[in-house]
């Protein structure tokens, strides 16, 4: 195989830089040769060539489903891509507890919630509950973390109120539903309220959910964001290390 040019990354089917991709989509067109050609032309407009519309199926009511393969001419320069990622070390629970003892010297308070309309608590529970997730205990089990999980559909107001009352070190927000970008709206709302109430710099703001990345979280003004497959250990490590660093300054 030829050498990969990192400045010109293209999709790979079975040969370097062949640009091969798979597409699946529906169009409001009949399930016939004209419809198939429409599907092909959509792909042509997207810069795809050598198109093979290998399947079409009548979805009825005037729609047809297409599956296709084709070669894209698009390429990206990997060397120019710098994504922000949480880069603190990951400690296990015991290491983290010791770290908090040594570097912070007091119990940390962390408040979590699914905010606004969101009722999907499984994700935040995976991070916070005693039991934890995939062999990592949740924050509640950490000896020197005071973890308060407010659960589902908590209005931003209430979350911030609680945070103030408890003198929280960190707020953990979960957003699972993303239809019509509701997660962006809700997270923005919380951040704006926190700023208005002067709470923003008093604590860490951390968010998570399947469509969240650290990059997006930072863009929205948060200190960190955690996506699919995050663990309590990731979050706890981020919080304690970041708090310890801030204390040093």
């Amino acid at each position: 195989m030829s050498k990969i040019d990192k400045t010109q990354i293209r999709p790979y089917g079975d040969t370097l830089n062949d640009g091969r991709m798979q597409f699946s989509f529906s169009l409001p067109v009949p399930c016939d040769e004209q419809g198939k050609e429409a599907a092909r032309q959509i792909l042509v407009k997207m810069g795809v060539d050598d198109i093979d519309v290998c399947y079409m199926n009548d979805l009825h009511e005037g729609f047809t489903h297409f599956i296709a393969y084709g070669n894209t001419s698009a390429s990206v320069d990997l060397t120019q891509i710098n994504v922000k990622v949480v880069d603190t070390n990951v400690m296990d629970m015991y290491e983290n507890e010791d770290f908090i003892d040594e570097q912070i010297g007091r119990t940390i308070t962390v408040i979590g919630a699914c905010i606004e309309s969101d009722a999907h608590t499984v994700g935040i529970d995976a991070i916070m509950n005693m039991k934890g997730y995939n062999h990592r205990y949740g924050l509640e089990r950490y000896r020197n973390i005071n973890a308060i999980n407010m659960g589902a559909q908590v209005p931003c107001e209430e979350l911030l109120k609680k945070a103030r009352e408890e003198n929280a070190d960190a707020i953990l927000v979960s957003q699972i539903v993303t239809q019509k970008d509701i997660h962006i709206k809700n997270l923005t709302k919380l951040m704006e309220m926190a700023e208005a109430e002067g709470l923003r710099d008093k604590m860490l703001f951390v968010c998570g959910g399947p469509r969240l990345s650290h990059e997006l979280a930072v863009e929205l003004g948060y200190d960190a964001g955690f996506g699919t497959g995050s663990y309590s250990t990731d979050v706890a490590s981020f919080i304690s290390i970041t708090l310890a660093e801030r204390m040093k300054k």
Partner: protein
Amino acid sequence: MLKLNIAPEKIGQARGYAKQIAESFDWLFKGYSSVAIERTILRLMGMDGAIEGGEPIPNLVVDHLKEKNILNRGVAYWVVNAMVAKGMSVQEVGDAVAQGDLDLSQVEKADDKLVLAKLDELVVKSLAHIKAQKGFRDNKFAEYGPRRRPALYVIVATGNIYEDVTQAKAAARQGADIIAVIRSTAQSLLDYVPYGATTVGFGGTFATQENFKIMRKALDEVGDELKRYISLTNYASGLCMPEIAAMGAIERLDVMLNDAMYGILFRDINPKRTILDQYFSRMINAYAGIEIQTGEDNYLTTSDAIEKAYTVTASQLINEQFAYISGLKPEKMGLGHAHEIDPTIENSFSYELSHALLTSTLFPTAPTKYMPPTKFASGNIFKTNLMDAMFNFIGQVTNQGVQLLGMLTEAIHTPHLADRALAIENANYLFAATKDFAKEITLDPDGFINSRANEVLDEATKFLQRVSEQGLFNAMRNGEFADIKRPEERGKGLEGVFQRDENYLNPFMEKMKEELGLNK
């Protein structure tokens, strides 16, 4: 023949505890009513509409009576009294109260006989319509043939009723037998039913009577073309259980999500309110020939499907007993369970087969509702599609009543048009491939599948015994269900529950009980 080896006495024992649990609520059913039940009576009498701002007329009338402290006699009396006394129609009374033009507590009392006669007239007319709807459905099934088993059940959830119609019609043509219109989340918590056609919502649009009507019409049209009766599903659960049931009866829905305990456990609705409302709500379903579906899948979206399998069984048995009390026949009890086992564990297929078989063994005539993998669905649509195939395999060989088709994009978005077609294709392929496989095989009597099913039943029986000893409300207070504590005096909607006075009238309930043979 694929069959479990379970001692009938063991099943009898579990059922006995469940029966005890459900039958201890006579005091509630006989002595209480709720604002939702009263609004239901108004709707059944023919009252409809909403004022600007959206508040429905039935709510305004009930609130008015409550404010006047005369709700304990029931809305039926007061409204019909006004009709008779003033020569107004039901709707005119409602509109006048809503406008603040009429104080029902101040209307002169008409002759009781006249009131009762008028009431009877209204009840007869209303129930005749519901019976006609039932008859229409029965005729269609007689004409086109019965629903297949497992029936193909798909959801539409665009949040816009008109877009939903397009998707529903397409789904029917693709082969779906049942269309469920997902409603905007947490409608459960609304203490009123929104009005009119709706095009907004959250993961679905609202359950309204107008939306029911629009979708019913669309499905009737497409069903006639296809020579297949297409069933329509929506949700009754929540603070408006009986109201929505009535709307469904009027508009000829065929299936209703209606779980006796869902509101309490998963929506923090008050226990008394829920148990009371479900009683009347299910009676309406029974009367209208509507099949109910229960929400046992909810236990497994948060808890582990193996560890907590017994909670599903226990809930099914309780749901069954409450359904009997409301006059539902087993053929209309779509008891729920779900294929939620972690796909990475070994022998997940045998686990699921065991659990699913347990359900169909306990409820052989029920159109059990089998829910697909959701929790372990991931962004890998190819893998999710495979999990759905295993689910369809098991649905067919365990003879589930209704297969709520899994979508390969479960972890990503509410279903796209093509997702549904792929789901239907998946089910059709698996159902055909494994059509008679269950007839071919026998289970090792001491094997894992048999012992696992027995184990789950044992755990459920122990649990039901504990609950029956404490009483359902105490057990809920103690967090026996789904690890959540739900005290009887807490939760949403308690303020809507009231004691009937000695003159209380719910003529619909009485008539239905009579006709359903519930007065023994």
